[in-house]
């Protein structure tokens, strides 16, 4: 390579229109001029545009994200890396991260979801971790719309085909249906991987002269400016953005995964990073920024898929299944040998420098020369004024008294059936049977459980993990929604008997330029921070997806939390469903008079209104502590979080999904712990937080009650588990429902296949 050139030649005039098309404001452009001391080249403008997009630069969210707790005993790697890492003992770490692929999935659901899975897998294995599980957190419109069905079908196939082929099981997640997501679905995928801590590697570019290598698929014209695309709102023309949606190749991903782990295992690398959003640009500059170094590359050396690609295109392509490596000195040949063994392309495209500059050449001629630090770390950030939309205040205060009681028993029975048939609550078997859930033989509890439980490589410990988030709550009261996303995830992990340790988060919101949306974002992040602090579960990283709106209509503000916890003894894990006839059913946590924001109010009353259930952080913490203690002594035979649909649905789920086939139950909700006098609807279907349905052997009820008392968690026995193929017999609030559990099971299981036009029970 030739020596440094003073400054790249100007290739064309940078007009205000061009700046605007690149999503940069005039003030941001002024800043670029100041950083460079001259006008940028087109390639440089593209680089700034991508790095200063919301997706890469977090320009509207960074000041808010800074308020989140990121430190804790278990945290080995916090935000800012490819993925967060926690210490799970015995010398092992768990790397994990969640990411959104909402915009691509709205335009092309199959490839959008597939490449989302691919990206998050690479973020985890570039830490040196072997991915052991995927989780998908999905939001769609209601399934009576053909478009929502098309999106669900495509996304599920995309998530499935990718993970299935790479050989990483998809073991959990959530799928929520609401008209708010009709035009803008949310597709968030979390990946979890295990790494011996001494093998942990980061995305760094150290050591002057070390070779920088592009590995994997060739670079094509696909996905150019995907990061900028993902940072704008969807409109009628978004379908024309299909060329910005990349195409996934899970087979190449599998090769990259194995080759990367081999390279890292043999200590041949200084650093490695996925060429994800903003491709070569973000990987090269972020790696240099972390190490305070510079990178000098020549785009003519990058293997390309098409003739005549410009530096601009090569720098910004988001072609999938590509990685950037910095090899150790003298290791370049060994790296090549490994890659060749895996039939992967590798090209040395440049070297690490010490001048702190990202220098890009084309056949030696400099086409871009940008100081790394301001490019990566000085993305302009904005703290905006947030103002609540007054309409939401009115919704929250709406009089719900007409929905608080039932006319007769038949109304309760009908509501129970309606809720079990509501796709958000109903069985997701139709989805998760399309995912390989058992490959790698680590799955101790898979989809359908409150949290997935996975074997860890050494010792008796196991990992519990889940994703949670409630857009409706967050819409009605963002701070509470943020708190609940964290608290519910912690509760789910604790229901398996595991101690919650840390989270990754994905913030799916509308345009932050709207004061009403910015208010939601700021409040939800504040709520998450409060809950993370109260529960001792710091944030180790995540992703922000803004501009989720169409035609000026934002989606529900939807913070999604991915939570990890550790179980000391995998054999003491607690299942979600009833196990033994004759067991006693105990409710932990008190029911309040709350129906606002509930699935009941939405599905039966057709209303999204009222305040969402309150979340007392201290109560949430005590319940989690209690569940961990319950797990340690093995006193519970099942524990199931009481969430969407309230106690009545939680009980039905425990009975329908019972170990070895449906079991009946008898319960009296009037015996459940309560605060004040909850109305009948609140007692049956209200979604008061921090409640769990537990079953335990009759001889151990006293022990359970004593533990609950010691943790200051209200607890009461409300009934017992009955025999196989029994009835669901529940009293409460002056009403009584008696129905065959198998009948409830049929409703619960057929809801999705029926809407997807496939018969339930059609097994082939």
């Amino acid at each position, binding site marked *: 390579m030739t020596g440094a050139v003073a400054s790249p030649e100007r290739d064309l005039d940078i007009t205000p229109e061009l700046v605007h098309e690149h999503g940069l404001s005039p003030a941001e452009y002024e800043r670029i001029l100041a950083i460079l001391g001259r006008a940028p080249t087109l390639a440089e403008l593209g680089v700034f545009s991508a790095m200063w997009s919301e997706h890469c630069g977090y320009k509207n969210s960074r000041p808010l994200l800074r308020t989140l707790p990121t430190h804790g005993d278990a945290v080995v790697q916090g935000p800012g890396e490819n993925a967060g890492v926690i210490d799970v003992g015995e010398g092992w770490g768990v790397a994990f991260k969640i990411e959104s692929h909402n915009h691509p999935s709205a335009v092309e659901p199959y490839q959008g979801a597939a490449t989302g899975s691919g990206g998050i897998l690479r973020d985890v294995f570039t830490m040196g971790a072997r991915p052991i599980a995927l989780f998908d957190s999905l939001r769609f419109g209601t399934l009576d719309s053909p478009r929502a069905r098309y999106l669900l079908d495509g996304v599920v196939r995309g998530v499935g085909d990718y993970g299935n082929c790479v050989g990483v099981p998809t073991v959990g997640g959530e799928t929520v249906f609401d008209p708010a997501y009709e035009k803008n679905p949310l597709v968030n995928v979390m990946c979890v991987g295990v790494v011996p801590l001494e093998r942990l590697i980061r995305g760094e570019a150290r050591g002057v002269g070390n070779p920088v290598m592009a590995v994997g698929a060739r670079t094509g014209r696909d996905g150019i400016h995907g990061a900028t695309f993902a940072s704008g709102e969807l409109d009628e023309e978004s379908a024309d953005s299909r060329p910005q949606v990349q195409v996934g190749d899970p087979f190449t991903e599998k090769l990259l995964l194995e080759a990367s782990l081999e390279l890292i295992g043999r200590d041949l690398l200084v650093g490695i990073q996925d060429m994800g959003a903003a491709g070569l640009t973000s990987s090269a500059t972020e790696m240099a920024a972390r190490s305070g170094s510079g990178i000098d590359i020549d785009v003519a050396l990058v293997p390309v898929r098409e003739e005549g690609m410009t530096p601009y295109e090569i720098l910004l392509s988001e072609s999938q299944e590509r990685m950037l490596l910095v090899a150790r000195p003298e290791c370049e040949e060994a790296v090549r040998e490994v890659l060749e063994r895996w039939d992967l392309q590798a090209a040395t495209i440049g070297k690490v420098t010490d001048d702190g500059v990202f220098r890009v050449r084309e056949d030696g001629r400099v086409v871009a020369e940008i100081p790394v630090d301001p490019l990566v770390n000085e993305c302009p950030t904005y703290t905006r004024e947030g103002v609540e939309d007054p309409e939401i205040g009115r919704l929250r205060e709406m009089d719900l008294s007409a929905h608080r009681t039932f006319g007769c028993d038949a109304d309760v029975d009908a509501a129970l059936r309606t809720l079990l048939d509501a796709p958000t609550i109903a069985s997701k078997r139709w989805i998760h049977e399309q995912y390989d859930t058992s490959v790698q033989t680590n799955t101790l509890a898979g989809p359908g459980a409150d949290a997935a439980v996975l074997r860890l490589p050494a010792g008796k410990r196991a990992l519990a993990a889940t994703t949670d988030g409630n857009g409706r709550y967050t819409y009605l009261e963002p701070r509470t929604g943020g708190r609940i996303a964290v608290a519910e995830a912690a509760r789910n992990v604790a229901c398996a008997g595991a101690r919650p340790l840390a989270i990754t988060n994905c913030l799916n919101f509308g345009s932050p330029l709207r004061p009403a949306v910015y208010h939601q974002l700021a409040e939800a992040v504040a709520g998450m921070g409060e809950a993370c602090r109260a529960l001792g579960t710091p944030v180790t990283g995540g992703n922000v997806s803004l501009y989720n709106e169409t035609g000026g209509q934002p989606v529900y503000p939807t913070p999604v939390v991915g939570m990890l916890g550790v179980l000391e003894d995998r054999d003491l894990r607690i299942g979600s469903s009833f196990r033994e006839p004759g067991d006693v059913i105990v409710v932990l946590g008190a029911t309040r008079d709350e129906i606002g924001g509930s699935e009941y109010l939405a599905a039966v009353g057709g209303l999204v209104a009222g305040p969402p259930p309150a979340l007392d952080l201290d109560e949430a913490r005590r319940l989690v502590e209690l569940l961990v203690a319950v797990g340690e002594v093995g006193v519970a035979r099942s524990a199931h979080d009481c969430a969407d649909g309230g106690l009545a649905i939680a009980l039905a789920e425990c009975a329908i999904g019972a170990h070895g086939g449906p079991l009946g139950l008898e319960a009296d909700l009037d015996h459940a712990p309560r605060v004040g006098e909850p109305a009948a609807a609140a007692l049956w279907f209200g979604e008061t937080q921090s409640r769990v349905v537990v079953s335990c052997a009759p001889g151990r009820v006293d022990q359970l009650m004593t533990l609950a008392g010691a943790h200051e968690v209200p607890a009461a026995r409300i009934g017992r588990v009955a025999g196989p193929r029994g009835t669901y017999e529940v009293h409460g609030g002056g009403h009584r429902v008696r129905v065959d559990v198998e009948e409830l099971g049929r409703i619960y299981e057929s809801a999705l296949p029926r809407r997807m036009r*496939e018969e339930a029970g059609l097994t082939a």
Partner: protein
Amino acid sequence: MKFGIVRFPGSNCDADVVRAVTEGLGEEATYLWHKSHDLGDVDVVVLPGGFSYGDYLRAGAIARFSPIMREVVAFARAGGLTLGICNGFQVLCEARLLPGALVRNRSLRFRCVEVGVRVENAATPFSRAYREGERLSIPIAHGEGQFVADSGTLDRLEAERRVVFRYVDGSGEPTDAANPNGSARNIAGIINEAGNVLGLMPHPERVSLGYLGNTDGLGVFASLARSVGGGDRPHRRGAETVGVGS
């Protein structure tokens, strides 16, 4: 004894088979790289599940042309015990070591679920650790697992007791509802004429370890170990056929 587990670039159940054999059974296992021309001293060859070469064309269609498959075919034709699981079954059919073919599931969807499997013939080197008629619970995980063959072939398979595993319901009956992929006659696994090559779609290696709470699949590997160790394995025409070739 030693199991050799073939590793195609897209194999993803290879490590699971190794774990089942070593941790579940306490036997030795070694990987056989797809570019290799040498099976070494293995007693049994396993073609594991996965997506051998991406399988974008047709499952197993490219794998049959890989270097290692020349050796596997020679090994199998010489009487060597060869087991194909899921993608491995597809490869064995493509390589014409087993009759019939595996096409897309009747539902046209990938499906992963634990299914009932009945042992139809416990007198093979792959099933001798089971009782005849025993019902096992083993997961499937495939998009192309519908076994098809012409009726003459199917009749012959049945007559020669070469259907070794069949999909059945909770009471052990091969009903249509218990058929997870539309396979002809609920066939889950078959053996070749010589009785030394078996392919099955369910994944026995995923239910071979105690901590998973189900070890129904371990019998497949235990059967093989007994067949090799017991000295009554089918005749194998000497090791000289192994490792010969380009």
